[in-house]
């Protein structure tokens, strides 16, 4: 009988090929809640879709807003001029001669609606004086030439409570107070805003360099928060600035960190390891740290290579397999905000630029929830610039307070850190929300 020696490799390969063992029942129950949303490519598509939806809604809202505005203007202009013409003539021919007639008619039509309400319908013979008062009240809003249109040199003492403002410069609409009491439109607002942010980047250039610079790097939780002050230029447009703090971060997986290296560090320099990332090169400044790239093998640059030093033989303490790279910025934004719908819930389109000053730069790993300092990222630009677009919804729940939500897409005009051979432009998608106080 020909007894042939067994091939142990084949024996195990073939024997285990289709072998199955039922896992414990609780495994699926554990997996299910941990399944996160799909990865960046899909998230990127979703961000793009969200932006598209926001733009669509903005365009619709803009068109809708204009329609409402036009209807209001038409209604005002459609008032029968004949009813009020004699009053105008009696009031001041000078006015008729200098203002466009429809506007004057509209103005008087509306003023006539309001004044009786305030004065218990006692209008007829007092209307000239009333109109004079109204126009005089509005004069501060007019420019120098328009001030020449003052009706009466001998205008009697003002009865200001009836009319609050007359905005000829903005939309040529009358803003007549519904409240007999004085009401001034708040022009300033201060807001406390915060936003979680999802960061990613657009990379172009050499594919190999890009791949090596970004492998094993996942965006970490990022956020922005701060105070914003805005000034209302006119009924729809406002300018916003403020001071934000934003934390940007990423996680580098596959880089093992060991502690206890200090006694083997013969250079005593501390900066023993460098790790190349898309945000810049990390340099260790903790002499107790030993780093090793377990994934690609070429991200960690050091003289303590595998053939020189083996952390397991030196019995170094394994700490973690993930590095956290954090950058903190103070942001000074200049944002324009255009109100497309001015209702109980306002809709705004926002866009602007921001200059960001680097104030925090740290790299650490964690052991049982405690931070263990590794070093910092070198070559990060002290100042970077970003542009942002978004759409905001603002709910006014009292005269002076409102709550807003603003999905915002931000694109960094320059990278955090220049990398030869590739262009890396970070972008982020955030959802700003916060309280606004108007004064």
């Amino acid at each position: 009988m020909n007894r042939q020696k067994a091939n142990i490799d084949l024996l195990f390969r073939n024997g285990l090929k289709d072998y199955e063992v039922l896992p414990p029942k609780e495994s699926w129950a554990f997996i299910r809640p941990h399944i996160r949303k799909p990865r960046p490519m899909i998230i990127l598509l979703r961000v793009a879709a969200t932006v598209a939806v926001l733009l669509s809604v903005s365009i619709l809202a803009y068109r809708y807003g204009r329609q409402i505005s036009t209807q209001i203007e038409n209604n005002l202009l459609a008032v029968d001029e004949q009813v009020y013409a004699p009053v105008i003539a009696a009031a001041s021919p000078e006015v008729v001669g200098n203002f466009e007639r429809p506007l004057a008619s509209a103005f008087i039509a509306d003023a006539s609606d309001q004044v009786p309400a305030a004065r218990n319908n006692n209008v007829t013979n007092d209307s000239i004086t009333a109109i004079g008062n109204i126009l005089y009240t509005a004069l501060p809003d007019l420019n120098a030439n328009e001030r020449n249109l003052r009706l009466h040199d001998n205008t009697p003492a003002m009865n200001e409570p009836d009319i609050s403002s007359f905005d000829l410069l903005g939309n040529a609409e009358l803003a007549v107070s519904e409240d007999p009491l004085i009401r001034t439109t708040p022009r300033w607002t201060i807001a406390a805003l915060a936003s979680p942010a999802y960061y990613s980047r657009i990379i172009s250039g050499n594919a190999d360099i890009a791949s090596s610079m970004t492998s094993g790097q996942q965006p970490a939780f990022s956020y922005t928060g701060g105070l914003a002050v805005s000034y209302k230029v006119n009924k729809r447009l406002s300018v916003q600035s403020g001071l934000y703090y934003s934390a940007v971060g990423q996680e580098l997986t596959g880089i093992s960190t060991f502690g206890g290296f200090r006694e083997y560090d013969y250079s005593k320099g501390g900066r023993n390891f460098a790790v190349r990332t898309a945000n810049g090169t990390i340099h260790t400044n903790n002499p107790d740290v030993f780093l090793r790239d377990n994934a690609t093998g070429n991200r960690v640059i050091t003289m303590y290579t595998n053939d020189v030093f083996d952390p397991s033989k030196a019995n170094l303490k394994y700490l973690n397999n993930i590095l956290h790279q954090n950058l903190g910025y103070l942001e000074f934004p200049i944002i324009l905000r255009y109100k497309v719908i001015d209702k109980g819930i306002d809709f705004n389109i926002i866009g602007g630029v921001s200059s960001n000053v680097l104030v925090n730069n740290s790299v650490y790993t964690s052991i049982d929830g405690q931070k263990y300092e590794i070093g910092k990222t070198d070559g990060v630009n002290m100042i970077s610039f970003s542009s942002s677009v978004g759409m905001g919804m603002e709910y006014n729940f009292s005269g002076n307070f409102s709550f807003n939500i603003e999905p915002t897409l931000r694109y960094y005009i320059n990278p955090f850190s220049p990398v030869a051979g590739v262009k890396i432009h970070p972008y982020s998608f955030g959802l700003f929300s916060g309280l606004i106080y108007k004064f």
Partner: protein
Amino acid sequence: MTDIKNIISGCLKGSRKDQEILYRRHAAKFYAVCLQYTGNDDEAQDILQEGFIKIFENLGSYKYEGSFEGWMRRIMVNTALEKFRSKHNLYRVDDINNIPEPDAEPYNEDYVGLEASDLLEIIRELPPKYRMVFNLFAIEGYSHKEISQMINISEGTSKSNLARARIILQRRVGSYTGLKKRVINE
């Protein structure tokens, strides 16, 4: 293929039902793989769970090129590798001299009747470094160069680990089959 495409598509849309179908369909096979890569049942369960979470998170990057099961298996093996890397300095390598000599050198016919569960138990008894090299070389088909990069050892170490793993397996299989024969004869 259409069926699996529909399931993948459902998973990408976040369908819990499709995710569970995918899991139920492959969990038993991959749990056996996880057991093969570690001597500890709890750790095998961790690898299975982490592996499936990665599979679901990375489904979008599957390009429908090559076997889907092979793609998933690579993720499982990589997860086992990560677990191994994070702990490998804690593992001790058994002294090969402590392993008993087999009753007889095994031949092909000795393995007739040796079941997959027996093979799994034998492979799980290997020291972790030997088991990892043997699995990657003999089962997954990686070269020593690839293995050396994967677990950060030299090619020479990979070869010697494989040789030692084979010797241990030969001895254990020999002892196992010898024991079986004795049991049958008695």
